[in-house]
């Protein structure tokens, strides 16, 4: 069998959709944090249906990535639409947040 030395908790996949902006980001933040508090420190964000991410959305991603890391977990994103990917690149987040094309690759990034 394959050896998996990852000791992190279970993986949770959040499927997000629509616009993540100053109005909708608090609900996204609350949902991810609730799972994090339950010990789900390995987090995947499924971004395929997300059409718009403003800095309010980026703030949530950064916040959650920091909290996951502090709890010995990690966070990765996958399925970003080109315009959303551009926002991550302009902000420099593309360099500090693991981003994958698909879910399998994203799971590999967080050792799941």
């Amino acid at each position: 069998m394959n050896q998996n030395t990852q000791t992190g908790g279970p993986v949770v996949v959040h499927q997000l959709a629509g616009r993540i902006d100053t109005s909708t980001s608090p609900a996204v933040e609350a949902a991810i944090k609730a799972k994090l508090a339950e010990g789900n420190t390995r987090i995947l964000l499924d971004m395929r249906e997300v059409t718009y991410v403003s800095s309010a959305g980026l703030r949530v991603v950064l916040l959650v990535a920091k909290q996951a890391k502090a709890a010995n977990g990690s966070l990765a994103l996958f399925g970003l639409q080109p315009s959303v990917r551009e926002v991550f690149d302009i902000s420099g987040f593309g360099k500090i947040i693991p981003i994958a094309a698909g879910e399998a690759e994203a799971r590999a990034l967080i050792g799941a």
Partner: protein
Amino acid sequence: MSQAPGAPALQALRLLGTREPAAVAALAEQVEEFARRCGCAAPAAQQLALVAEEVLTNIARHAWPDDAPRSFAVAVEARRGEDSVEVTLTTEDDGIPFDPTAAAAPDLEAALEDRPIGGLGIHFIRSMTDSQSYSRVEGSNRLILRKICPLDRGE
């Protein structure tokens, strides 16, 4: 869809901003839709929404020290050229003097642990618009942002 060859050369949209996040988000979306109607390519129109959301959020949260309901003026103008649309976004609020064009940019090279939460707004505004000008006019902050958007050429 929004190529609109018969669209007038100059179109304008005047809006009233308020402080609730839902109102700010809706206004940013209206700016995006207006830009699309005026012939801007989709990525540029979305950048205008991102910039509008930054500017409006900043006014809504910080222009007045109290939590009282306030409103502020938002105007969008689109001038159609040969192969581009020049969009001007102007905001005017009677809050405390604040020049967002003078704000410090975030360190984009910082590691995850060192990267502060927030501070991206001014970076978005600078990277996604072609010019930014601030003035304090008769007790109001006036911010004028200009973006040259490529024309939507369809698919």
